[in-house]
């Protein structure tokens, strides 16, 4: 995952954006403000406590106890009048050791009407959940459909993206992406010159001043390590409601996402699909209630279905901190295990934080 090309790209960008702000700093008498204006930097920390009925047995996905789930360092800046840079470094524990990894490092254009070109390493625009950073996941963990089909890191590759905002009365965006086909779960292409194509179409209608409906479709294909082609399909539907008055204390949203992978020549799990559906209800200013149901088995994995049900209660003192308590029930036929799990997560944000995707 830790690719040479990505590392050098991100270092180049840090150098570029960093040096620019230092340069401006010498020109004004107001260094703090200039610095923050030129390079927005922020940190997200996710602290996690977990207790599961399977304890620390090898069957449990995650060990019990407290852990630093992830630290995200994010730097964004307009590089000049033409380009914007965005870098996210993730520090997380892998096999007991902390590693730092460039989660995203890309530049995108600011000057082309109707189009945005993007280059670097980024989460592919493919479905509702894939492009989210861990700190903005709707639940403490990613849906099992995403982790099982796309892998733990999701579809996150080095490549290029062209997106076009089609001139229609509703929001209609077409995104074509050419990415290195290195995702182990899906493609596992041994060389960097194999590309996976990802096409994503996003539609959003404003049903009224208070509600929207989004319908997205995604398709991807690329060569896999078994001399075959992997096809990926995705579709999702999201409904969101938020009143005009008291808009910070009432809201509702509901997303349902379907994912399917078809890996030619694969000896196991040739065709695997799943559906994940989650809803969020806010009845009071600082409180969130959420529920999620997931089914992996459309078509079934070789070893059998996995079903998972989650409930979450969130306390959000401000935009910059959030405490979430989640219960999961996992019924995994593949390993004939059942697990009850409780998780508590503190999610904090320091420094500047770019707006979240709607």
């Amino acid at each position, binding site marked *: 995952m830790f690719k040479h090309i990505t590392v050098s790209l991100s270092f180049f960008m840090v150098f570029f954006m960093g040096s620019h702000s230092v340069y401006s700093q010498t020109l004004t008498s107001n260094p*703090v403000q200039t610095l923050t204006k030129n390079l927005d930097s922020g940190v997200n920390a996710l602290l996690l406590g977990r207790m599961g009925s399977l304890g620390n047995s090898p069957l449990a996905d995650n060990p019990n106890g407290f852990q630093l789930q992830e630290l995200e360092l994010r730097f964004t800046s307009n590089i000049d*009048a033409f380009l914007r840079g965005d870098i996210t470094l993730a520090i997380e524990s892998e096999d007991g050791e902390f590693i730092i990894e460039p989660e995203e490092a890309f530049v995108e254009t600011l000057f082309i009407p109707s189009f945005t070109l993007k280059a670097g390493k980024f989460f592919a625009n493919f479905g509702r959940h894939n492009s989210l950073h861990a700190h903005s996941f709707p639940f403490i963990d990613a849906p099992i459909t995403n982790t099982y089909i796309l892998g733990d890191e999701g579809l996150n590759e080095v490549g290029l993206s062209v997106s076009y905002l089609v001139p229609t009365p509703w929001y209609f965006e077409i995104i074509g992406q050419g990415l290195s086909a290195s995702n182990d779960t899906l493609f596992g292409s041994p060389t960097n010159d194999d590309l996976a194509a990802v096409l994503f179409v996003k539609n959003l209608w404003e049903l009224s001043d208070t509600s929207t409906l989004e319908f997205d479709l995604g398709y991807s294909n690329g060569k896999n390590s078994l001399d075959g082609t992997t096809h990926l399909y995705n579709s999702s539907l999201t409904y969101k409601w938020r009143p005009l008055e008291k808009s910070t204390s009432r809201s509702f949203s509901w997303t349902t996402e379907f994912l399917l992978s078809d890996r030619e020549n694969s000896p196991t799990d040739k065709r695997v699909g799943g559906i994940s559906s989650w809803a969020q209800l806010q009845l009071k200013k600082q409180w969130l209630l959420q529920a999620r149901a997931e089914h992996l088995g459309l078509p079934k994995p070789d070893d059998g279905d996995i079903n998972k049900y989650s409930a979450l209660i969130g306390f959000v*003192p401000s935009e910059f901190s959030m405490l979430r308590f989640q219960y999961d029930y996992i019924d995994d036929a593949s390993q004939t295990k059942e697990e009850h799990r409780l998780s508590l997560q503190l999610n904090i944000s320091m420094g500047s934080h770019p707006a979240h995707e709607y």
Partner: protein
Amino acid sequence: MKLLFLYLSLILFVSPVYGANKLNVITTTTTLKSIVESIGGPLVSVNSITKGPQDPHFIEAKPSYMVKARKANLLVAVGLELEVGWLPHIIRGSRNPKIVKGKAGYLDASSFITAIDSFPLLSDRSQGHIHRLGNPHFLLDPLKTIKVAKGISERLISLDNKNRFIYESNFKKFEQQILDLHQNWTTRIKKTSVEKVMTYHKTLNYFLKRYNLEHAGSIEAKPGIPPTAKHLISLVKKANQDKVTCILNESFFETNAGKRIQKSAPLHLEVVPTEVYSTPKATSYINLIEQLVLSVENCSKQLDK
């Protein structure tokens, strides 16, 4: 494939053409929309991103706003980081290079005024949701609004020079109207017995300052954070001691806390608009300020009873 082609050609060619020849302006708030309409009249078609009853601090960057911003010739924002949480995202998503910060199509209204309540650069978030660069609710001061309206008229002229005289004369009309009303508003507020006012948020500081009313405290202890019981008790004490006669509770915020203070102190609570259309009667910029003045008069009348 045929179907896809048909679908694509339909959406590409049937998309509507909005207000041909008019300058397409997008504003972040309804108050700015009302001001731009006063200056541009029928020469501009104006859309506001926030709707009246919506608090402009907390807007989600809906993709449908990007659709609105895509064809804009001019974007007018309040500035002072009021829209920092969502506007940059909308501008980027609109892929409209004309309205990028620094271009002629981007206008920051705060650049025409001097802000109050600005905090030292190093103040931090333990103070709540503060605007480091200053209080962004300056349009509630009619005299500051005149300065902003002048800036808007100059920008409209630079984008549409052939109609220069119309923009100039509309601005002069607007300026005169506000100056006349300002006289009237000043006299009316002076006549009331109201001197000290509490609000929920620091939204009304510019208005209060302009009309010589003292801001005696905010119901929220820190911006953006709901009040604690302890803070409410201290406000009741203050209201009694300092003879605060009026709570102007901005319509964006709940009134329960204010009503609790009203029960224990001799003051009157009025729900007031802070943006055009944030209450039904605030139908234009002038009516917005008129509603605020009426509320101060109401406080006074209620207490004289």
